[in-house]
């Protein structure tokens, strides 16, 4: 490990990359200027290329490894979509360019809105949210705007099943709501009695995903929707799990009033080591006036335009300075057009097939399923509680050991309600051979867990670093390099 700063030498420059001279700028008031330049690295172009190329090789990624990270839908990210989004005509376009000169990109976005409406059964879509959590924010803000538009000010609470993703409660709070959690039964379904008890005039809405993060389909969704609506609340659909049911069931048809989609999951846009994503929101008719702006509209002459607060006076407003992550939206549009009708309808089927097959094989291999009676959706949970108790190995140990076998670990310790859990999502783009190889690795690790648990506890063994000390990281905070510091290796 060497930091880029450690390659730095005062006065060196990657000379091809900056203007050849530096004008003096003596019109700028002296007291507004900086007196000491920032200690950015002073390195050659080769040093930069070599440093970051080598760093990249230390990553696991879809392009190099099976990555069955539950709830994250790590499917193949088509290179063609990347090519499309990187077309110079798209890249160079300024967000404030005249709409006359932006009809191409606007028409893509408009078409994408239409496709997303059709796939979700919703009436309106805004592509603006930059990721799932921002989509949730937009959705809950619309719920709030809806109640307020009806002067229904008593609704201060959002209900959320305990299995839900952390963004759900965090979002509700950012929107000024209090959160009440609803328990989940042992079979993975929401506890309807508890839900009934929780509902009331204070209920603004219920946030849930279906299939849930337990990896099972909420069978009583019709009942739940009825209960919430009867209580005057609205239903929010966390679309992170849309891949499971794409083309099979539509949130709009299940009674949801609003949803977000994670295009960086279901629509195969790359996750970029942390983003950018894209989290469009779709809404039922009654929430349409509140959609976040801008939205792309088309007039009768087929001319496209950004719609803003003049067109949608009740909008919840803007969520970012411009128009969300257009580069990501273009990738999603590529994906939707490439798959088309036939392809989009197959996604959920094969995602489910792979998950159920993998679940079945792991069960055969001796692993304990969290919901053994249930059909898996696009993902499923195994619990290592038994192994932890008997052999002293945790879900984290198994996860780390999997890295040694060349597989990215599944999601660990989420959802929180299943002890020592691994949430496993293979996605539809992995082959049966890859799934079988994963099962073989898990089998082998289980064997090691019984006979040599220390091997797991010390894992990983073959990566650029061994197990890292998280506690120390938080206690002896080192969040940025300081001039003069060496990486000590």
């Amino acid at each position: 490990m060497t930091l880029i700063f450690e390659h730095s030498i005062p006065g060196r420059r990657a000379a091809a990359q900056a203007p050849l001279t530096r004008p003096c700028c003596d019109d700028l008031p002296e007291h507004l200027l900086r007196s000491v330049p920032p200690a950015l690295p002073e390195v050659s172009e080769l040093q930069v290329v070599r440093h970051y190329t080598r760093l990249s090789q230390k990553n696991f990624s879809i392009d190099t490894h099976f990555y069955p990270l539950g709830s994250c839908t790590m499917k193949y990210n088509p290179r063609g979509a990347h090519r499309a989004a990187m077309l110079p005509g798209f890249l160079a376009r300024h967000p404030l360019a005249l709409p006359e000169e932006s009809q191409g990109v606007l028409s893509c976005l408009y078409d994408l809105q239409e496709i997303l409406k059709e796939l979700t059964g919703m009436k309106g879509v805004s592509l603006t949210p930059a990721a799932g959590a921002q989509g949730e924010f937009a959705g809950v803000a619309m719920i709030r705007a809806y109640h307020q538009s009806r002067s229904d000010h008593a609704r201060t609470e959002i209900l959320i099943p305990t299995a839900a993703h952390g963004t759900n409660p965090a979002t509700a709070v950012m929107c000024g709501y209090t959160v009440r959690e609803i328990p989940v039964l042992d079979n993975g379904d929401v506890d309807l009695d508890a839900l009934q008890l929780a509902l009331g005039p204070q209920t603004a809405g219920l946030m849930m995903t279906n299939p849930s993060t337990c990896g099972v389909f909420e069978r009583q969704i019709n009942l739940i929707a009825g209960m919430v609506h009867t209580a005057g609340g609205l239903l929010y659909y966390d679309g992170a799990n849309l891949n499971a049911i794409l083309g099979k069931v539509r949130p709009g048809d299940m009674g949801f009033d609003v949803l977000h989609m994670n295009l960086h999951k279901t629509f195969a846009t790359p996750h970029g080591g942390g983003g950018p994503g894209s989290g469009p929101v779709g809404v039922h008719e009654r929430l349409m006036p509140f959609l976040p702006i801008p939205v792309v509209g088309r007039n009768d002459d087929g001319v496209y335009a950004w719609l803003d607060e003049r067109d949608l006076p009740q909008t919840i407003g803007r969520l970012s300075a411009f128009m969300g992550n257009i580069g990501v939206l273009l990738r999603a549009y590529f994906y939707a057009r490439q798959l088309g009708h036939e392809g989009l309808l197959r996604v959920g089927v094969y995602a489910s097939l792979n998950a159920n097959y993998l679940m079945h094989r792991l069960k055969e291999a001796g692993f304990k399923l969290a919901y053994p009676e249930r059909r898996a959706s696009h993902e499923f949970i195994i619990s290592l509680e038994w192994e932890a108790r008997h052999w002293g190995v945790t879900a984290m140990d198994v996860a780390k050991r999997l890295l040694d076998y060349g597989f990215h670990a599944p999601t660990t310790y989420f959802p929180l309600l299943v002890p020592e859990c691994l949430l496993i999502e293979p996605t539809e783009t992995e082959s049966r051979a890859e799934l079988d190889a994963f099962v073989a690795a898990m089998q082998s690790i289980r064997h090691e867990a019984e006979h040599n648990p220390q091997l797991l506890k010390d894992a990983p063994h073959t990566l650029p670093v061994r197990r890292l000390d998280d506690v120390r990281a938080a206690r002896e905070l080192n969040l940025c390099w300081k001039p003069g510091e060496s990486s000590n290796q």
Partner: protein
Amino acid sequence: MSYIPHTYEDEQSMLHALGLQHQDQLFDEIPAELAAPALNLPESLNEMQVLRLLSAKAGHFHERRCFIGFGAYAHHIPAAVWDIVGRGEFMTAYTPYQAEASQGTLQVIYEFQSMMAMLTGMDVCNASVYDGASGLAEAVLMALRLQKKHPNPRVLVPDGVHPWYRQTLRSIVSQQGIQISEVGHNDKGQLDPSRLDEEIARGAAVLVLAQPNCWGVLDDVDALTDQAQKAGIKVVALVNPTSLALLKPPGLWGTRGADLVVGDAQPLGIPLSSGGPYVGFLACRIESVRQLPGRLVGRTVDVSMRPGFTLTLQAREQHIRRAKATSNICTNQGLAMSAATIYMSLLGAEGLARVAAVSHQRMLELSRLLEDAGIEPFFASPVFHERLFRLPVPVQPVLQAMAQRGFEAGVDMERFDPSLQHGLLVCTTELLESEDVRDYAQSLMDVIREIKA
């Protein structure tokens, strides 16, 4: 089934292993009445066909000469930046939750945090928020958390802050009932200190200071920071990172420095791309780090004491703290952040200063040419590479006529503020040579003459 690897035999044998006859049985827990209707979706195309379609849609925008800024800046992006960022190992990895299998991404984030801390003069910078505008909202919420017991949690925002930043701020923080008051500008386009005094007197918890502001104008940030902080107000600095190669870092504004620094790192190697993905950043003092939203990477060691990196202070985040998190943000703008890191490495402090200085120099050249032709700036203040000019004619037809000549001529500011009638906001960067600036000035004069006639 474009990217699905299964053959018919695969599918059959897998169904067989599951004891199923047909794929529909995989969905047998779903109530039948919920089954989706026949959907109206376009037909499949192959890669060649979609690329042909999208190439036509993309057009030739890259061949136009762009004089628009207003929060999004067209700088040269070294070819190496996206060649490296586009490597599968960076582009197709998830958030680095498994640290040992993500040292590449984690180290890049650590380096980004370090560079941004140095650029802003702060102790810590997060691993990105969505963009500068939503970042501003996060900054204001954070500043308010730092002011927990404040009697009057009002936020002061100069009207020189980009109008869409102000809108975004409002849509986000108003959900929690937070009050925002705008503070007007003086005739130099700067935040008016006396109006600020009045607002301070009415009680406030947070002041946003944009340097430069959305008209390119530079404020006397030292005095304003002191003025606010003396009254117990937290100062959120909103900056363009390129400008910081030349301008005083917010960490050194006034006596104590700004409390938070936020902005969009788009100018650092991120393409305009019609408005996104960009990459917001938020920097603070180490004392405040537990209130910071977004991811953070820390340096640590492995069991054999080798140095390494890991996500840290996750107890601030939604996946651990849920309803009590500092923000709901999860997925951020990782890849754009990586691009900014590589960009800064390639440019270095001197390179970035050259980019800033040449960008600014072109504005000086343009100002001189326009002033010679009788077109004056709206505000007689120092600016950074962007300036608002008062045209003798309405701006909209000028933009259209300039577009015919291959120029993206700027922004009609009247659209945002009626008091800025005939105001054309123009920005220059190092992508423009002096010759482009001369062509622009000439064309602008021609166009105005035609419109007048």
